[in-house]
């Protein structure tokens, strides 16, 4: 009995160790091979000589701008959707549909978003392949993250607060604004940050919505095409003229992207952790 128990326990511990080991190894590998590449020049200069030299600044810029743009859409929509789900439409049919839609959006393959972005934003709405179309497409992709995070935070606000508010003569919106939302703020923040982390790393939806292989200039309007870190990695590892030669650039780019997404996620985890600790 005791022996079997130990075996089982060790097996689960082993599984955990393997996962953490792999994770660490990925980060380690990219860090080890990429760290040497990161210089100020690498971060601040455009690529040169057929992208075999120089930096990745346009890709960083493109990634950041399209992500920021995405945030502008996704946060209000996500937050209000969550407010609707949790505050207004509890148990209503409409919210059942919304929930189904949100769940679904969360698991639709990213390439399908790409198709949709192309079909809807680029072609149908004639926004063209550019920052805006890409940001909107990714925005829809990350919508569930914001909604779920916000909803979790809203749900954690005890119902008794709301009832107390109503019983004091507050209106619904007053209750939401002055009691519920302040409480849920860390959750909303977490959602936003997580969506940034996720959005930055997505490539597939960009493929047909405006990402460019190489641009000699920075995009000047939201309809312009743009370069992107993730896409850059993909391109450099699979389509560039000399894959072996550009290995350092590949690693460097991967490291930059990884650091960006990781740091956003770590910040989100930290906020969430503090939030949960405070609650209990």
């Amino acid at each position, binding site marked *: 009995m005791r022996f079997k128990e130990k075996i089982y326990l060790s097996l689960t511990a*082993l599984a955990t160790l393997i996962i953490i080991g792999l994770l660490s190894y*990925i980060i380690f590998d990219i860090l080890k091979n990429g760290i040497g590449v990161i210089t100020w020049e690498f971060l601040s200069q455009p690529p040169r000589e057929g992208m075999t030299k120089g930096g990745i600044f346009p890709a960083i810029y493109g990634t950041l701008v399209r992500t920021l743009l995405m945030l502008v859409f996704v946060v209000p*929509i996500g937050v209000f959707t969550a407010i609707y789900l949790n505050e207004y439409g509890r148990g209503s049919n409409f919210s059942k549909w919304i929930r189904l839609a949100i769940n679904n*959006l969360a698991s*639709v*393959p990213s390439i*399908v978003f790409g198709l949709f972005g192309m079909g809807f934003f680029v072609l149908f709405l004639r926004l063209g392949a550019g920052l805006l179309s890409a940001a909107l497409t990714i925005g829809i992709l990350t919508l569930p993250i914001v909604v779920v995070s916000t909803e979790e935070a809203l749900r954690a606000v005890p119902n008794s607060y709301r009832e107390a508010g109503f019983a004091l003569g507050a209106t619904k919106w007053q209750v939401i604004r002055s009691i519920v939302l302040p409480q849920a703020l860390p959750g909303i923040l977490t959602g936003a940050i997580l969506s940034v982390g996720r959005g930055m*790393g*997505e490539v597939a939806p960009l493929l047909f919505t405006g990402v460019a292989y190489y641009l000699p200039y920075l995009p000047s309007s939201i309809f312009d095409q743009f370069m992107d870190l993730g896409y850059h990695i993909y391109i450099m590892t699979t389509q560039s003229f000399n894959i072996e030669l550009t290995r350092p650039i590949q690693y460097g780019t991967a490291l930059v992207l990884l650091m960006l997404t990781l740091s956003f996620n770590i910040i989100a985890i930290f906020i969430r952790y503090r939030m949960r600790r405070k609650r209990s």
Partner: protein
Amino acid sequence: MEVREKLAYIIISLLASVAIISVILIFIFIARESLPIFFNPEIKKEANLRVFFFTRDWQPISLIPKYSFIPLIVGTVKVTIVAIVIAFPLSLGAALFTSEFIPGKFREIIKPVIELFSAIPSVVLGFFALMNIATWVQVLFHASSRLNAVTAGFALAFAVIPITYTICEDALNTVPRELREASIALGATKWQTAVKVVLPAASGGVFAGIMLGLARAMGETMIVLMVSGNAAQITLSFLDSVRTIPATIAAEMGEVAFGSAHYATLFFLGLLLFSITFVINYIASTLLERTQKRLRGER
């Protein structure tokens, strides 16, 4: 006062409907572009359901384009199987370990760390797989090609693990502490408690975790695009190169002529993918909801 309330309600409802509208639009626009397969006589000749499912070759840019889905489906299934076989035991094991066997403080650390996996963009995973896993697989299995279903599945597992792990762990964790204590107090060991009380109670959630992991594996694009070898062929060996549905769309959509049979076919593939994930997701979320309700409903 009244007006403000009404206004708030209207605005919120409108914004909340964006999600529904998006899903509908996704469906409509993907369906719209794939409709020619059924209605455009020109295209119907080249690409139709019979061709998709009852021929053997996917050669869209040969002189006589061949649009069989079978090699793509085979490829997708292969990588998915590999991914699940690797990811699931690891995820569940780790979920059990974190939720059942380690004291609170460590769990607080280990869980977020594992969840960090999901923060790694899939291109980066693909890149890592290209650099490392492919070599490992080649060395391990003496595969003829570095890029094959096993490599891709292995890399995909990285994408699946955080999802499956998180959902399983959450499900295990929502099982009330009192149930565990009751079991322990009856003289059960921790393992017995985990397997006989906690797991059954959370079974719906665990299953949902697998389903959603599956959906992710099937739908993942960049990793497979980078490390599956992209050869559309029907073979039994997992060590052959494969081409999956998402990778096919990603790789070919860029070069396809707008409105062509190939174009419509790719959209139809998208529609297929969308429908499959839709169904899987529906089942999974129903299961999740039911489990949660059951666990919560008892008090």
